[in-house]
């Protein structure tokens, strides 16, 4: 593994980590919105 590959690996890893977290936030938002809609419909 040439050392430049480590550079790419580090940058990609960084964005994978951030992307995973932001993705989980998006998922939680949509789940929350669904529950909110159910609640409003039920009223």
């Amino acid at each position, binding site marked *: *593994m040439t*050392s*430049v590959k*480590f*550079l790419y*690996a*580090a*940058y990609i*890893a*960084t964005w994978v*980590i*951030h992307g995973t*977290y*932001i993705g989980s*936030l998006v998922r*939680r*938002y949509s789940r*929350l919105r*669904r*529950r*909110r809609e*159910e*609640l409003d*419909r*039920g*009223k």
Partner: protein
Amino acid sequence: MKKALLVFAVPAAVLTALLLAYAFYQAMWVAPMERTMGEVQRIFYYHVPSAWTAFLLFFVNLVASVTYLIRRNTRADAVALVSAEVGVVFCTVVLVTGPIWARPVWGIWWTWDIRLTTTLVLWLIYVSYLMLRRFSDGAQTPKLAAVLAIFGALDVPLVYFSIWFFRTQHPQPVIGGGGSIDPRMLHVLLINWLAFSCLALLVGWSRYRLEIMQRDLEEELALESLLGDGGLPPASAGASSRTGSLLNRTSSRMGPG
């Protein structure tokens, strides 16, 4: 009020993305190549700003925790939770990019570098903080978490000193080196720091909003199950009328999806 803030969200996200792209371009192509380490050194522009951002977020957590203990303000507790979570994310980036940088430069993945090791312990403390929040039952979690945050803060200087002395006894390589830094590199470093701080702010604000919305929703659900609604059907066998009506409504809502 919520709608007004939302208007800023999209442009803020676009701006942050542009800033990050610009910072990336600066780090990859504009910054001069380091003499001893070569291209790999560019990891520095992601590793160090992430560390600064993580430490800043953990400091915010400490302030929010102390504020909560003094004033019992639930917003402060939400800020504490958010800053801990986003802080752990940035801290993870530091702990992953550190060894990836160390391996080609020093030949080993982990060198007990003082800053990296202190970061590891901070990460452990805050992951345990998040586990406490997750495993503890709702009502008293904020108080317990705030106390743990204080304990963590007291621990950090002790961690730093113990590693520092350990290293004087067992000399180890230092990641990132000390000493002065080329002003062009400093410039790129600061741009990346700005970009990541904006990302932290954006993600933190989103998480905060999510947390507030979630708490509001849960409060409403709790109130509803306590008070019920008008026109309750007669009590079904084996269940109270309020629970029965809630169950009926929930099951009719289940449907597809």
